[in-house]
């Protein structure tokens, strides 16, 4: 379970990017966060991963409070938290399967992995994760030769190799065509259900949220505007999310 409690972030400039933001996402649930540009969506994910340190609030993964941790303890706790973003961010000159296996590096601190080697057991697992995202046939291909949709699925397989409890997705379909976008969203929903993952996904495509989310969270000015099951999402409330602050 992912539990975000009263998360706030104020930048040194004085701007409040997150304001007392709270959300709970259960295992097996795909939660989609909707909001306009600058509403605080990406800041929320960065605070959850502790790439940014929140000025107040707590982030819990099951019974671990991430905001209390630092150094090696934080690194270990982060293993339960995988991220994918708009760009697949693969090492283009490495094979697809090697890219996937690097997701598990955090579990191995030996000299072999420090010298650039990958554990055999993780390479075998990487093949399974690639099968899971439907790209088993491309395992030995160079990552740089993949299409945008394929690369994003490899990024998801790399996230799975991390063996996380929570998967954070920051606009994962923003640079994909509609068909590839639907594929990725279907995959995220399936992973939430079958692997019992918490999937927290930031999106701009409202229709995809209507189609795939278990719950939809609206964010505006860094705060929660609504947090409801998909069936209860009001189109008017969503429309208001994207109106400029001045309006």
């Amino acid at each position: 379970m992912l539990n975000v409690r009263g998360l706030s972030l104020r930048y040194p400039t004085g701007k409040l990017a997150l304001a007392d933001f709270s959300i709970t996402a259960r295992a097996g649930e795909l939660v989609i966060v909707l909001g306009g540009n600058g509403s605080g969506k990406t800041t929320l994910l960065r605070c959850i991963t502790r790439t940014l340190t929140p000025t107040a609030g707590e982030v819990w993964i099951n019974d671990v409070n991430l905001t209390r941790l630092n150094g090696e303890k934080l690194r270990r706790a982060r293993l339960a938290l995988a991220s994918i973003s708009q760009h697949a961010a693969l090492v283009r000159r490495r094979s697809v399967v090697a890219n996937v296996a690097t997701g598990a590096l955090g579990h191995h601190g030996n000299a072999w992995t420090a010298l650039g080697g990958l554990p055999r057991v993780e390479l075998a697992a990487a093949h399974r994760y690639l099968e899971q995202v439907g790209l088993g046939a491309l395992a030995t291909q160079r990552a740089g030769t993949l299409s945008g949709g394929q690369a994003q699925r490899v990024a998801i397989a790399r996230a799975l190799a991390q063996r996380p409890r929570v998967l954070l997705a920051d606009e994962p379909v923003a640079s994909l065509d509609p068909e590839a976008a639907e594929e990725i969203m279907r995959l995220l929903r399936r992973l939430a259900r079958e692997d019992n993952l918490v999937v927290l996904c930031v999106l701009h495509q409202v229709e995809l949220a209507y189609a795939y989310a278990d719950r939809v969270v609206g964010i505006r000015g860094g705060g929660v505007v609504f947090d409801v099951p998909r069936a209860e999402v009001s189109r008017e409330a969503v429309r208001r999310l994207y109106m400029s602050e001045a309006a």
Partner: protein
Amino acid sequence: MIGDVASVRGARRVPGGDWGRALGHAARAVLVLVLILIVVQSLIVVRARPQDLVTGIHGMADIIRRATPPDFSKFRTELWPALETIDIAIFGTIAGVILAVPLAVLAAANVTPSRILYYAARSVIGFARAVPDLVWALFFVTAVGLGPFPGGLALAVHSIGMLGRLFAETIEHMDMAPIDALALTGARRVQIFTHGIVPSVLPALLGISLYRLDENIRSSLVLGFVGAGGIGFQLLTAMELFQYREVSLLLIITFVIVLAAERLSAILREKLA
């Protein structure tokens, strides 16, 4: 009235009007004058006497006559110095690469572990580059004696400067998204380096190293002039003994080595691209 309109149009064409235009012309004239002065002072300082080329043509023709045909009977004895020359360059390049990689990582602003190490690495790289390889060779000849070893050391140290800077720039311009993604998986710093940074920049670093090897082969020819071994040393000795036919043979060997190194380096770099 017509004069007024003309002056308004003129003012529109050149900001500041006639004064602006006059200042522009004056600035251009000063610039041309400065350029002429630079050329003239360089001719005076180097004591350029083109007429000497004409009067010296007989001397040059005499050297060419005495240098032909090349003395191919010495070909076998020149093979070892030729190999020495190539190996000085190989040693210098490999040692330079080995030392330049860690320095480049410290000297790349996007991956350096601390600002102090960044400035320290930049200083070492800058110093190694600022001192010419010939001066390094003189230094190492004094330190370890005559022969190919000081030549190799000189090229290694100078290569640290050249390679360190180019490697650091390559790392600074790399796509950081895969590195950030690896960091988020919980990978350790050393794993991020070996699994993210190395595979991303390796082809570029190999290409730069091959180019450096090509440069080092040229440099190692000259290093022999200060006693650092190789074909350069043979060339100097033959010239001092007026053995011009041997000189011409050595020049042919030099030409073949340089051309072969250049082509091989270009082919390999093309394959890496």
